[in-house]
């Protein structure tokens, strides 16, 4: 059933080499670069899983921060009672359940409702948690475990590798095929017997679960979590921009956006900390007007042009 073509083997070997390089990174680079690498690994995880859903369906999800915060809080509340790995899995489960509920409520309808709903989701969850904390007299949660920076990095790289694998498998599965049809024309998809709502809900559970898991993994890095740290709305927008900047047409597309944007973000927030919102805004405009298919689209266009020149 899983027949591999020669291009698949080629892609597989390139991915394995890149993965090995990524794994060896902490021994090569210094501390500052490693911190940046942890951020990049986190955004690779978030943006790639985001694109798995939003790429084919064109539904812009802004719920990343909400799932991320959910995961961070799962870790924060459970770290003294349960082992770390179990909590990460639990966070993923909670994320999937929450995504399923949101999906069932909004994905039956037009995409706009979904965008609006996810836009305020992190803010609403934050309000509710703040309210509960005020009611119980609690302030923030101290997380008592701690890892080396390189451990965080390896955990995130492992998660990223897992997502690439899942994404690759979905692309070959019936679900992936169904989603591409939905993305092209939902009406056609419905008429050819695809349960469009169910497919979308199932797929939306992936970024939900993944974002919650990365929130749980990263939480010990913060050491102390409170609603404002765990539910930063900016996170959702950063993920959208990185994924779209790279391009959602290929599995590796978001990665091509994560690397340059993380560096740019680091530079801007170091020298002009108040202008990060402006940077976000301009990035959105650049994507829409200049790079509608992201770097991936640009690359494919250039390649097609070169191909034409050769006269194939």
């Amino acid at each position: 059933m899983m027949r591999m073509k020669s291009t698949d083997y080629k892609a597989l070997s390139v991915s394995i080499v890149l993965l090995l390089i990524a794994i060896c990174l902490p021994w090569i680079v210094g501390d500052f670069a490693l911190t940046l690498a942890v951020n990049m690994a986190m955004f690779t995880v978030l943006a790639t899983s985001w694109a798995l859903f939003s790429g084919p369906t064109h539904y812009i999800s802004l719920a990343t921060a909400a799932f991320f915060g959910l995961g961070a809080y799962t870790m924060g509340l459970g770290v003294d009672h349960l082992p770390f790995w179990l909590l990460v899995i639990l966070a993923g489960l909670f994320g999937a359940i929450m995504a399923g509920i949101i999906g069932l409520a909004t994905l039956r309808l037009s995409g706009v409702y979904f965008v609006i709903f996810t836009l305020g989701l992190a803010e609403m969850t934050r309000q509710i948690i703040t309210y509960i904390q005020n009611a119980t007299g609690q302030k923030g949660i101290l997380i008592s475990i701690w890892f080396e920076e390189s451990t965080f990095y390896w955990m995130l790289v492992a998660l990223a590798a897992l997502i690439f694998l899942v994404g690759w498998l979905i692309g070959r599965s019936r679900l992936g095929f169904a989603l591409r049809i939905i993305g092209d024309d939902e009406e056609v998809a419905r008429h050819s017997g695809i349960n469009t709502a169910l497919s979308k809900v199932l797929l939306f559970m992936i970024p939900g679960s993944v974002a919650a898991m990365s929130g749980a993994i990263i939480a010990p890095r913060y050491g102390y979590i409170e609603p404002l740290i765990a539910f930063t709305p900016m996170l959702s927008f950063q993920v959208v921009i990185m994924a779209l900047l790279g391009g959602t047409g290929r599995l590796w597309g978001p990665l091509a956006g994560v690397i340059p944007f993380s560096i740019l973000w680091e530079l801007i927030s170091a020298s002009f900390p108040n202008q990060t919102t402006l940077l976000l805004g301009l990035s959105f405009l650049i994507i829409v007007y200049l790079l509608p298919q992201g770097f991936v689209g640009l690359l494919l266009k250039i390649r097609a042009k070169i191909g034409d020149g050769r006269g194939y």
Partner: protein
Amino acid sequence: MGILITGLLLGGTYALIAMGLNLQYGMSRIMNLANGEILVAGGFAAFWFWTAGSLSPLLTIFILAPVAFVVNWLIYVIILRPLVKRARSRGQLEVDAILTTFGLSFVAVGIMLATFGGDYFSYSYLLSPVELWSETYALNRILAFVAAVIICGALYLWLNISRAGMSIRAIAVSPDSSRLVGIDVPKLAALAFALGGAVTAVGGALISTFLTLDASTGVIFTLKALVIVIMGGVGDVRGTIVAALLLGVLETFVARLIDPGLTLAAAYLLFILILLFRPQGLFGRRQS
């Protein structure tokens, strides 16, 4: 009783803001997520005119409305119209419009942060108490409500009586057929967008007389306006007003009886109920 009236007063201003968004989304078909930033900019203008020139916010709106109209018209013609032309389907336009207006909203927040800083701003204007049915209310809330009612009423009449207003409603129902009966759709869509922006900015000036704003609160108002528009039914003026009053009352109940920090959660509760049970809006007919 006091909560109900405070809620209705708040809902009146919400109606005005949501009406602005409805003109933009329902009529000119641009989901404008930078709507809240226009509102905050309107509030900033009122604040600035009051503190620097001690000009009453009720007079400021007469300067503000034409300026906001022109600015929004330019935004539509320069930035958004190319997207309308390039879009092959409604869905693509929606995605492009969402991303672009997000971009605009962040740019606006960035500019406002750079010019005014990140502080909260508020000013006291007409704080004198007014007694109604043995409860007291601040005069500024009542004035904002009255102004909102007048503007909403005028808009409602204009949309129902004048030729331009009726054409705009025709676009909301069916842009393709309106072209067939000789309506200049691109021109009127720009007009509706600009008018919506002007109404929102005026709403911002009115709301700033009794609420504290800061450069980044815009998105909250965008969300509330969106919830109201969807609840009332996209393109439906009457539904918008009813939905806005409902949200105003519910929010005030939650703020007074449970916790003032939960107002957005209250709006979301309404939103979920609407999505689950009446996605076509309060008065909308179910599409077959």
